[in-house]
């Protein structure tokens, strides 16, 4: 069976088609993927020397980045963020929300620093109210742990362990 090991010339499809057309490869001996390639060709031909396109690399920026920048510049310690938790908003996201509502309220009359100051105050109050919500005491935590233990009790019978 004839082969063409020239990976830098054409594509696997063009080379196999060439072999079939010239008679070196019989139609029955064509590769398994040949018909699949003809029915579902790739978007771009897998040529070795396909040139790199002359496209620019865009920078991704949002309007909210201005707010983020000023928030993180003035507040270095913002705590940790759990990336796996997509239900709760992060502190930065909450700040952006507050900032935008304040900005909408003023509607262009106040300066950026005024809006920022008010937004920060609102955020601080928000934080305090959250802390007050989940007030944890030692006794309540102990009772909760006990309840969970009784719920998750696993009954193990030693005589049943080796039964099949």
């Amino acid at each position, binding site marked *: 069976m004839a*082969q*063409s*090991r*020239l*990976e830098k010339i054409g*594509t*696997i499809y063009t*080379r*196999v088609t060439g072999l*079939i*057309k*010239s*008679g070196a490869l*019989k*139609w*029955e001996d064509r*590769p*398994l*993927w040949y*018909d*699949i*390639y003809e*029915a*579902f060709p*790739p*978007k771009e031909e*897998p*040529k*070795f*020397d*396909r040139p*790199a*396109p002359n*496209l620019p*690399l*865009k*920078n*991704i920026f949002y309007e909210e980045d201005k707010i983020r920048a000023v928030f993180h510049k003035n507040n270095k310690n913002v705590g940790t963020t759990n990336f796996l938790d997509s239900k709760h908003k992060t502190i930065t996201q909450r700040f952006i929300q507050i900032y935008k509502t304040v900005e909408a309220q003023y509607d262009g009359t106040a300066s950026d620093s005024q809006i920022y100051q008010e937004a920060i105050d609102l955020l601080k109050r928000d934080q305090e109210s959250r802390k007050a919500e989940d007030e944890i005491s030692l006794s309540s935590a102990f009772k909760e742990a006990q309840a969970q233990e009784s719920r998750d009790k696993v009954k193990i019978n030693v005589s049943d362990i080796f039964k099949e």
Partner: protein
Amino acid sequence: MRSLSLLSRKWGSISTARLNSTLTEAQATPDPHKAALAHPDYFSVHNLFTVKDLFDARVHYGHRDGSLDERMLPYVYGSRLGHIIFDLDKTAEYLRRALNVAAHVAYRDGIILFFLRGAQNSHLVEKTAQECGEFAHTRFWRGGIFTNATKQFGAVTRLPDLCIFFNSQNNVLLQHTAVKDAAKMGIATVGVVDSNCNPNLLTYPVPGNDDSPAAVELYCRLFKAAILRGKERRKADFNE
């Protein structure tokens, strides 16, 4: 000299006759898999995932600006503070094509070989291959495995019909030798290409993250599902 030129003209006519005969030969023998190829999504692999699944599996994270391969630019949405972000709409399109091809190859009882070089996710890829009844090679690649197969294995070897690269690079961040070797031996390839990879030699590239365990897990799950669907339809259509 005159006789030579006559011969060359006659030779030309013979080769066109042979070309016509091979084509008519192709049309004459009916292909049992032709019905599957006519359908744009015979195995419903397009419904195996959504763009949100890609996002949750962190497929859109590329490496940094500095290591970007310019050939990957068409698939990149942009750079967020130095980090390359892939365009998930494009990734979804390429991934659907790749899954469809994998399913068709499985439908035709083709041999599929998974590749991943990277200790963190190697075991997962090997397990995936075992679960879908295909093969995996996640160890050091000796030079002549494809190109010198008969000598290396000591017997006539059937090479894979499709190579799926979950990471098209090896441990030293150079392109995996098997990408070039598969192109040499005329084997179709599907490969996940990260922002520092070269997508040119892969037949069906899939631009996306190849490093996060979440992303590799997603690819393993999707390709396993596509291959198993292909095999199921094969059993249903031909072994009734």
